């Protein structure tokens, strides 16, 4: 059986499949549940300075099995309340990565510092939520902003800092380069695509917030392109995310350049049992291809295409 373990920015992961931020991430019990189901690590819901209820419902729309639109609006209990959830997950033995979002570099740095104190293995910066005013893409679309925020956070914590990049940009790889310059230990790509659903009977957007973010199978080809381009332009490891639902999807991301992966929407369609299945499928694929260690496959598709 192929070795699925990977080292990501100094953190040893038992397998590459991380729970993506925002899915099963509000409660410690859920984080533990994803870990127990076989995730290689769990990323928390993105946490901010104060409690945020998020947008009113409807917050989601589903497209058959290939897509999910959401505008949750970054609901979270705030950094003062959240540590107990992380502690619960850590007690269950989970490798936890803390995700935070802020409006400027000071807020990011403070939140990262606070979340570091809970013993997380790394901090991920949400620079890429496409539907939260004043946060996410609004602070993560310009390379200078990304660099400045990452630099401020890197100064304030010891754990590795991961920048999560938006695909809603002319040049996502340029944002990854900026994160690298700022000192990021890794980048995650991608967050959701800015998107919208309309109800024609009611003549209005379906989601209460109007615009939302598209995730799921539909965005896999877009995520692969981002990972591919980023891999060619930075030296730090890339975490692939977007539409992963099978071991084949996973290996495509790995060969495009990802060293670890995140899984979100697939949980909507199959629960966290998806982690067990993904491990099995990926391992089978590697065996079939005669690849002994997952790490040997990272970026493999670039050799043929220089």
């Amino acid at each position, binding site marked *: 059986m192929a070795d699925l373990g990977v080292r990501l920015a100094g953190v040893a992961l038992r397998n590459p499949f991380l729970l993506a931020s*925002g*899915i*099963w*991430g*509000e*409660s410690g*019990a*859920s984080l*533990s*549940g994803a870990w127990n189901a076989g995730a290689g690590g769990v990323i928390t*819901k993105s946490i901010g300075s104060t*409690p*945020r*209820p*998020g947008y*009113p*419902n*409807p*917050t*989601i*729309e*589903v*497209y058959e099995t290939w897509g999910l639109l*959401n505008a*949750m609006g970054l*609901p*979270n*209990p*705030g950094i003062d*309340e959240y540590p*107990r959830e992380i502690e619960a997950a850590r007690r269950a033995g989970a490798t936890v990565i803390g995700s935070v979002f802020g409006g400027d570099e000071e807020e990011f740095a403070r939140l990262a510092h606070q979340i570091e104190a809970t013993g997380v293995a790394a901090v991920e910066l949400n620079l890429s939520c496409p539907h939260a005013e004043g946060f996410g893409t609004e602070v993560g679309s310009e390379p200078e902003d990304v660099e400045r925020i990452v630099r401020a956070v890197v100064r304030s914590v010891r754990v590795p800092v991961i920048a999560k990049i938006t695909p809603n940009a002319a040049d996502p790889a340029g944002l990854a380069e900026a994160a690298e310059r700022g000192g990021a230990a890794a980048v995650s790509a991608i967050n959701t695509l800015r998107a919208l659903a309309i*109800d024609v*009977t*009611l003549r*209005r957007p*379906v989601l*209460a917030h109007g615009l939302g973010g598209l995730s799921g199978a539909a965005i896999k080809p877009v995520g692969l392109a981002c990972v591919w381009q980023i891999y060619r332009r930075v030296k730090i490891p890339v975490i692939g995310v977007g539409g992963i639902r099978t071991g084949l999807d996973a290996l495509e991301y790995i060969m495009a350049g990802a060293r670890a992966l995140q899984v979100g*929407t697939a*949980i*909507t369609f199959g*629960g966290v049992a998806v982690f067990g299945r993904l491990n099995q499928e990926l391992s089978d694929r590697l065996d079939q291809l005669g690849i002994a260690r997952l790490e040997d496959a990272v970026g493999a598709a670039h050799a043929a295409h220089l």
Partner: protein
Amino acid sequence: MRTVVEVTETVVETPSTITLRFPYEPPADPGQFVMVWIPGDDELPMSLSYTEGGSKGVTVKAMGETSRRFLSLRRGTPIGLRGPYGNRFDLSPHRVLVVGGGSGTAVLAPAAERALARGAFVTVALGATRADELLFRDRLRAAGARVEVATDDGSEGTRGYVTALVSSLLERETFDAIWTCGPEIMMSKVASAASPKGVPVFCSVERHMKCALGMCDACALGPYHVCVDGPVFRADRLTSTEDFARFHRDPSGRRVPF
């Protein structure tokens, strides 16, 4: 994934409770819920109080802002629906005690009706603040259930909480199962009363819901997601959590005491 339908009928059940009927074809079972969207306002989980055939219904008690708005909905108003979601009551037990508090009876009524239609013997213990807030008393009697009543002010039936009524029923009679829905404190007391008798208790619980797809974590209750693992749970599953009857989560995910 949403269907927009027009409300075809509204029934004022109690001064604070209204039933909306609407055409909705997807098959449903007692215990399941739908997400009901009032365009321009909010979308709330509501148990189906009518599950049979194409004309389904929900029964809503005015609590906060949005549920209050349900009371002003009229015939012809468009609402959005998705679902049904969640699990269902196991309807196989023969002698069933149904314990409903407040709007909790909404989800129990169709379960009782279907059990009765299959020949079960159903006793209903119905609680409310006062007589005119008793939900579905006549509907349940008409279906063939024995209905016993408790009101806080004694305006009908026993004075006091419905849990007292349950204890005395459990003393006198044997049941194969208890189905209950209402305030968690009430359900937790019902579970405590039934436990020494070895009668399994099934509770329909509520948590704040957003996705209803087991994904967003809004409805987390201990290790469960109420939207997909519930809303119906065996009481022992719930009492082993730290949350049941003690904490729920507000829309931000913050754990708050009941």
